[in-house]
């Protein structure tokens, strides 16, 4: 009974809130007012039932968290499948084969979408080093992406350097920018760091927008060549497929690198730094050096992704590197689960592919997107697939 009253309250509240926009419609041409009372009924009913579902889910979640507190680390089925080679091998190899066959099954348009999804996988995994593993909130990650993209565009424009030459240069440049930004900024903690990196991202964008002699301003740089295949010129379609395979390769390298970094002495230091900086220093970890390594390595992947992005679109301008971009990459990391490689990949695909395929509902896209984010954060604050703490089991067997 109390539940019904509560839901009634919710529905009345929503009816009241949405009254001006859902019920009243002012026709400014004929100067009449339309009253759409039926809408009010719909809003009332919908919010009434939704509040029931909401409360049910919250209750379930609370029960779940109680279980977690009582000791055992709850590991979901998905996490289990991912962490046991017996199950994950066939799944991974299937996904791999599917990804290999992908450009031959679908159109160039689809392949292009998949390429941008893969670029975001790379960006997400790169930022995952900084935010997910080392726990440094970086809101200006897109700046390093821009550095990579403009490195290719400008070096090609001025010196006619090819894609393969610039790829490492772009990564290196981004890493250098990461270190340059890192040295003054990494003394800051948490919120302050976030604000400064946000500012840095905007500075890079504004420079690119306003320094016409250097970056050609808002009009951007066009006719950036696609990567060549051993000196051969490729048509649009072949080039797309070629870039697609290149991206697959890069993604695999990224996964490999991030995985290795995570399970190393350096990775442990990052994790510890995320947990407690003072204790870390007392244990002999050089805070600056370790943080800088995280920043530089994260930036490197953004640099690589930037170079590939420039080569893929053949045109770049500062509008591609706004704060929204940083926010999307960050939400990929948070949505997927901090520090979880599989989670980040899944989230990147969701975040990039869903909006593409939901173009039919494009007007509601942002609304749905926001609602989905809120739901995930309420019910799975640890991310879609949280990372599993590595266990050193063999050590126990030995003795």
């Amino acid at each position, binding site marked *: 009974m109390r539940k019904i009253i509560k839901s009634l309250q919710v529905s009345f509240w929503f009816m009241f809130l949405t009254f001006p926009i859902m019920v009243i419609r002012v026709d400014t041409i004929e100067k009449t007012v339309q009253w759409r009372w039926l809408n009010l009924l719909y809003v009332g009913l919908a919010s009434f039932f939704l509040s029931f579902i909401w409360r049910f889910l919250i209750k379930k979640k609370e029960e779940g968290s109680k279980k977690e507190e009582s000791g055992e680390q709850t590991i979901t089925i998905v996490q289990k499948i991912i962490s046991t080679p017996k199950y994950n091998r066939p799944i991974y190899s299937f996904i791999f084969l599917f990804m290999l066959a992908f450009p031959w099954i679908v159109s160039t348009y689809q392949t292009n979408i998949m390429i941008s999804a893969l670029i975001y996988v790379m960006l997400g995994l790169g930022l995952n080093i900084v935010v997910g593993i080392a726990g440094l909130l970086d809101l200006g990650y897109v700046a390093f992406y821009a550095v990579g993209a403009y490195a290719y565009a400008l070096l090609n424009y001025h010196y006619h350097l090819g894609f393969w030459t610039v790829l490492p240069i772009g990564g290196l440049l981004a890493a250098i920018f990461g270190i340059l930004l890192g040295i003054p900024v990494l003394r800051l903690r948490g919120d302050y760091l976030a604000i400064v990196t946000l500012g840095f991202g905007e500075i890079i964008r504004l420079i690119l927008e306003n320094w016409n002699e250097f970056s050609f301003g808002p009009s951007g740089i066009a006719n950036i060549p696609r990567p060549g295949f051993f000196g051969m010129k490729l048509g649009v379609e072949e080039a797309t497929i070629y870039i697609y395979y290149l991206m697959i390769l890069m993604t695999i390298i990224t996964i490999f690198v991030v995985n290795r970094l995570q399970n*190393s*002495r350096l990775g442990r230091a990052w994790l*510890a730094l995320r947990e*407690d900086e003072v204790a870390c*220093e007392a*244990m*002999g970890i050089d805070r600056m050096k370790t943080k800088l390594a995280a920043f530089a390595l994260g930036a490197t992947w953004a640099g690589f992704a930037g170079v590939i992005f420039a080569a893929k679109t053949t045109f770049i301008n500062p509008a591609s590197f706004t704060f929204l971009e940083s926010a999307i990459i960050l939400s990929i990391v948070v949505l997927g689960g901090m520090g979880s490689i599989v989670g980040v990949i899944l989230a990147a695909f969701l975040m990039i592919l869903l909006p593409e395929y939901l173009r039919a509902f494009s007007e509601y896209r942002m609304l749905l997107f926001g609602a989905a984010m809120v739901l995930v954060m309420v019910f799975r604050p640890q991310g879609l697939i949280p990372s599993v703490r590595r266990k050193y089991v063999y050590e*126990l067997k030995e003795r």
Partner: protein
Amino acid sequence: MAEAILEVRELCKDFGGLRALDHVDLEIYPEQIVALIGPNGAGKTTFFNCVTGIYEPTEGDIFVLDRKGKKRRINGYKPNKVTELGLARTFQNIRLFPNMTVLENVMIGRHTRTKSWIFGALFRDRRTKEEEKETIEVSYEILKKMRLEKFVNELASNLPYGAQRRLEIARALASEPSLLLLDEPAAGMNPQETKELEGLIEQIRDQEKIAILLIEHDMKLVMNISDVVYVMEYGRLLAKGTPQEIKEDERVIKAYLGEDHDA
């Protein structure tokens, strides 16, 4: 007698206008257990923080014998440098890495004794692999010594309180210090656990052959295990001596129990 592992001369630390440490002298010799006691706010933890590099002292000198047996002045060294030289500490309010496993916590302690960096992590060459294996083995040995082996893969935050205290000591030991600094190791422990801790500290001194400096409020523990006791009050050293001498020292009794107005 051998040279002092830690030698502090005329150490002062000001916070604004407040003098938290006022010309403190202290020295510790190998395999000694030294206790630092005093009422709350006497500056004991400030002293720890100065020695371990978390604060920079305002005046005075701190000398440490490094691993090669050379005497070094460590004023203004960063905490990680101090740890590299062979001083390891625990914290008054436990500062473990709560979301890492017990073993990982100790492995972090091995950081100063290992070297691999980005390239080692990426290419996992033979040296890195061996180093990693050694890290795990040594860490496990230390856990066994601290009777924590059954918790190896547990998250640190899930441990009972006493075990968390022991884990902090284990983590500090992993850096193979020559001097272990314990900040109120028995705080919040019951008498039984305190008794165990007493044995553990003595065992550490005997097995690892290291010196221990501890801040502690539990007088029974202090008097039972210390070789030398320093008493602080209002940032100043009040007294120094063997437990027996301290027990009988008028000034110390006054500091703890207040002035006797009838006398």
